[in-house]
């Protein structure tokens, strides 16, 4: 990658550790990819800079446990890099315009002060927004743990997060991807722009990126190049990756799950049967 690394002092690597699920589920970034990124950076920059691997707490995940459960404690110790919980420490609120509205989001100063941000997301589908890759991974770096409170305005919030936090390099962990099921694809993608990356990622997952609301808005906000994308294929063809991806219908899932819950609620209301509380909320 032709990236100019001169003058870099503080690097933040942001993997996707959304829950405590191991990398074999296709949900979280494989530590081996993060290790490879660390080695690559040391090779290119030398040793006179700081690397921090960072993740924020999520609605159902506490970073302190995720680092331990997923082996990141050990990984960072072995590679002599720092680990940071982005929900702790000095949090600064940043406001940015998205379309005609302003969005204010809290971010950790470690992320805001980084000279280089390496976004290391997963290649996977998402029940709520369809595509989750580089841009959604930056949404995950918002310091507020209860991120589901952003779900009503998620399109604007994902775009706003990526306007505030600009990923310099994206390295996608596609070793095990997750669509309708996890699958070993053994793919690594790299890009210097999260939107450009996600347009390609969306196509691999059989989404039309222009119809993914947050990607479409991000393109309008000129977060990155969405039209004339130059792709270098090394070893494996994009068409082959797309063919092998375990495709999943986001729309059908939403309709199916929503309809089942509605039917269940109607049934319990009419019959007087019990609705287990965990299905109700």
């Amino acid at each position: 990658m032709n990236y100019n690394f001169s003058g870099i002092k503080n690097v933040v690597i942001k993997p996707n550790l959304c829950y405590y699920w191991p990398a074999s589920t296709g949900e979280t970034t494989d530590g081996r990819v993060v290790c490879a990124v660390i080695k690559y950076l040391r090779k290119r920059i030398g040793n006179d800079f700081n690397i921090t691997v960072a993740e924020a707490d999520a609605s159902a995940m506490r970073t302190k446990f995720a680092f331990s459960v997923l082996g990141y404690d050990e990984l960072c110790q072995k590679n002599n890099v720092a680990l940071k919980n982005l929900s702790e420490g000095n949090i600064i609120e940043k406001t940015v315009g998205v379309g005609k509205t302003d969005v204010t989001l809290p971010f950790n100063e470690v992320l805001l002060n980084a000279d280089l941000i390496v976004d290391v997301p997963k290649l996977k589908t998402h029940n709520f927004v369809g595509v989750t890759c580089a841009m959604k991974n930056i949404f995950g770096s918002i310091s507020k743990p209860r991120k589901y409170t952003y779900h009503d305005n998620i399109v604007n919030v994902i775009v706003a997060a990526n306007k505030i936090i600009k990923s310099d390099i994206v390295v996608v962990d596609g070793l095990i991807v997750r669509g309708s099921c996890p699958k070993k694809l053994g793919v690594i993608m790299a890009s210097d722009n999260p939107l450009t990356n996600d347009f390609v990622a969306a196509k691999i997952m059989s989404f039309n990126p222009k119809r993914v609301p947050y990607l479409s808005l991000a393109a309008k906000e000129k977060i990155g190049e969405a039209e004339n994308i130059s792709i270098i294929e090394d070893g494996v063809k994009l068409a082959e990756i797309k063919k092998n991806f375990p495709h999943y219908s986001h729309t059908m899932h939403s309709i199916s799950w929503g309809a089942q819950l509605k039917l269940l609620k109607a049934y319990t209301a009419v019959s007087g049967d019990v609705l287990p509380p965990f299905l109700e909320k």
Partner: protein
Amino acid sequence: MVTAGIIGLGHMGQLHMLNAMRVDGVEVVAGADKSEKNRKYAERFHVKTYDDYSKLIDAEELDAVIISLPNFLKKEGVFYAAEKGLDIFLDKPISRNLAEAQEMVGKVEKENVRMMVGVNYRYFPCVQKLKNRVDNGEIGDTLIATSELVLNGPISHAVVPVPVPEWWLSKDLAGGGALLDLGYHLIDLLSWLLGDFDVTYSILENKMHLSVEDAGTIVLKSKSCDATGIVNVGWFSKSIFPDFNFRINMHGTVGFDSTDRYIPADARINAVKEGALNLIRRVAGRKLSYLSYTYYYSSFYKIMDLFFDALKSGAEFPISLEKQLDVMRIIDSAYRLNKISLDKHSDIVQMIDSEYHLNEVK
């Protein structure tokens, strides 16, 4: 009419409350929980709430309490209710460890109250069918019984993303991990099916670097027959409801049987069938088969029904405290035996290492 209070209105407490409200001759008078959100859930069903269970017990006229507290609060909850003369339904595991369990059982005996532990897996329809076949001698003498229960534990959220309570991940507060949480059910089932056991082998895993075990295998030997029981548990699976990775396989001198043979082939078709039957029952004015559309969750209603039936009739509880102490004895032995296994393993590794170095030097 039996009056009951719910102590702890978290996920399990809420489910017990909804079930108890549907048991004939039971009035759920009130519930208690520190969480305002949990109290509001109960209030939606016109159940009076308190922010402290001692206030509930002191203020209300109760016959019994349903205790759904975290493991580290169970003992004090049981002690308080027992001292006030209340009968108790207690979620499994009975306690964090054997010593605490013995104190709790001693307390309820001293106060002359009754307590039943909610080992609802006995009332899974598939387990009931297996039990009938074993009791009827249809698979002969069981020589090997294997049991498996691998669930999400703390690594995956339920339908709604909420963090797992942190006490789950603390050895001090929870008492144990996958063995205490899941193995409790399997050990109870194997003992119920085949009689008393001793532990002969135990290996507990800590792949997730938590302070409690996240997986384990223990081997049991029957005290009264030739049966060997194997318990496999794990907290490492991402799958959630309606997936349920549970089974018991019985290998006998006549043949083989498994709970897998009796579970519905398709959970959704079963839900539609059972739901339709309940709607017919409703129209016909008959009692519903509560939660049968979920298959496994019907056991929670069943066990609540049995608890209150025994209270009303004065009959013995179907689940004895003596058997629950046995389950805790086995778990206690498995923890101790695992420590010995690990020490031995460490010795073997050191021995191999030293031999390897010797060979290298040579």
